[in-house]
């Protein structure tokens, strides 16, 4: 395993071949833990980094970690991290070779990817056409049907009228999920249990879709009860090679956003595991995918799986995949962006052990509302065996209300799931954070639940444990 890592590290020593681009300086169009995470691998590979920061983030570690840092604007995302022209202006001024968008913000914005490419700068991700295709959930569903990938029964086109919505919903049977075609991140979807609820949700969902995503197209899917959310990491290069790096089970969610993820899934049989990974690979091959991507599936109680969406970027929870495969996915992103072949073939990629990630949020653990404020004490040890901390904050940092409330990711590893859980138990009790509320008490509760220990949980797990 170590050998594989060493081998791909050595890739940077090779002289550039025809069609390969030099990558000496990369701008990271993101903030917080993911910016620090990307900077780390860049520096290990001898690549210089350019950070951008808003006024609210000036004191955060990622700004200090980068080779150079530039102010981008006022705190609000629309005045800072979403300012495409400013990002590109800084990239040109710094003469960077590539831009890494991280996740969120501009990472799945095809106009941005195109604008970057037009300036002769490498966008670290798939081509704009694929981002655009997968960003439209209705088109993505149509594409997957053509690729022979099962999708959740649902509307083939966007729905325009409430009558159309009701007719379709009746044909699938309630409950149904009403979703924004441009949606993502758990925003813009509502579960409707009756025609009455669908009537009420229709206009508000359209309005919300318009204001969040600038597109009011909505569609309906049959609701899958007791579902699990399982996704597969895929990777493609510019030489036609595509591999999968196994699955991640992301079923523990609040407000349709992930909180705990693990790999392998404790639920899937080995037969289904192989099948779901191969299906994801097939889907990626069908669209000619390049760079890192994730195909999300919803899996029912009988292990039938259906395509949900594809994320055309590095995923928040990529770390658990790195823990079990010993692959540095950011490094692969850089290699592929540089025009190199994937360092490993499918048969060379193995998984070993079990990994679990806990997303540490600045939020009230009961009501899940964000809890901004100044971090007065921050004990999150980073030198514990089998524990990896991807962290965006430090003592004295201010958690501002402008961005996602995730502070850090606690990623544990063990030979078995039980070992990983034990490591997590010990670690979670070590953490001391004062000044803001966090969801640590929730993790401690989850990890002591019988159902979690047995791997028996579905996407409504958190709403159920809090009702008891």
């Amino acid at each position: 395993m170590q050998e594989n890592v060493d081998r791909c590290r050595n890739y940077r020593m090779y002289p550039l071949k025809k069609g390969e681009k030099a990558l000496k300086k990369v701008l990271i169009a993101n903030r917080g833990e993911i910016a620090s995470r990307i900077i780390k691998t860049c520096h290990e590979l001898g690549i210089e980094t350019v950070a951008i920061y808003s006024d609210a983030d000036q004191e955060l570690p990622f700004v200090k970690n980068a080779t150079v840092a530039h102010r981008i604007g006022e705190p609000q995302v629309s005045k800072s991290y979403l300012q495409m022209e400013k990002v590109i202006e800084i990239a040109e001024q710094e003469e960077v070779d590539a831009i890494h968008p991280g996740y969120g913000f501009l990472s799945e914005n095809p106009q941005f990817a195109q604008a970057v490419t037009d300036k002769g700068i490498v966008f670290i991700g798939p081509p704009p056409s694929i981002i655009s295709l997968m960003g439209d959930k209705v088109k993505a569903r149509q594409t997957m049907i053509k690729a022979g990938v099962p999708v959740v029964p649902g509307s083939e086109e966007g729905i325009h009228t409430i009558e159309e919505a009701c007719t379709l919903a009746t044909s699938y049977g309630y409950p149904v999920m009403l979703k924004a075609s441009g949606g993502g991140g758990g925003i813009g979807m509502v579960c409707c249990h009756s025609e009455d609820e669908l009537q009420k949700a229709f206009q508000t969902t359209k309005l919300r879709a318009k204001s969040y995503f600038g597109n009011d197209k909505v569609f309906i899917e049959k609701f899958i009860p007791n579902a699990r959310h399982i996704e597969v990491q895929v990777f493609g290069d510019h030489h036609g090679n595509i591999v999968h790096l196994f699955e991640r089970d992301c079923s523990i969610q609040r407000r349709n956003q992930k909180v705990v993820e693990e790999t392998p899934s404790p639920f899937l049989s080995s037969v289904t595991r192989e099948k779901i990974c191969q299906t994801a690979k097939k889907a990626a091959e069908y669209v000619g995918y390049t760079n890192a991507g994730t195909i999300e599936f919803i899996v029912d109680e009988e292990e039938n799986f259906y395509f949900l969406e594809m994320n055309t970027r590095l995923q928040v929870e990529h770390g658990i995949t790195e823990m079990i495969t010993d692959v540095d996915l950011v490094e692969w992103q850089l290699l592929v962006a540089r025009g190199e072949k994937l360092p490993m073939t499918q048969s060379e990629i193995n998984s070993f052990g079990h990994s679990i990630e806990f997303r540490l949020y600045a939020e009230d653990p009961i009501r899940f509302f964000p809890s901004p404020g100044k971090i007065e004490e921050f004990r999150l040890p980073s030198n514990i065996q089998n524990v990896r901390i991807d962290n965006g904050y430090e003592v004295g940092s201010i958690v501002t209300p402008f961005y996602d409330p995730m502070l850090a990711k606690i990623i544990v590893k063990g030979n078995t799931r039980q070992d990983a859980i034990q490591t997590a138990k010990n670690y979670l009790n070590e953490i001391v954070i004062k000044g803001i509320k966090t969801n640590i008490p929730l993790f401690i509760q989850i990890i002591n639940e019988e159902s979690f220990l047995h791997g028996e949980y579905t996407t409504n797990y958190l709403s159920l444990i809090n009702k008891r």
Partner: protein
Amino acid sequence: MMKEITASMAGTVLQVLVSEGDEINEGQVVVMLESMKMEIPIESTETGTVTSIKVNIGDFVNEEDVLLELE
């Protein structure tokens, strides 16, 4: 007597769920804020009639900013 409903945290106004002249009850959701990628419902802390709405959709408000006034 005039009463004020304020934002319990900073965020962007996503929806204003009441109009001037509406009679509202304590605990009723009056404004939906978007903050840190989450929708935060702001409930009225008072019962009364809405006399003035101080924010528009898309406005950024800070904690304690007045959202609406009641009588």
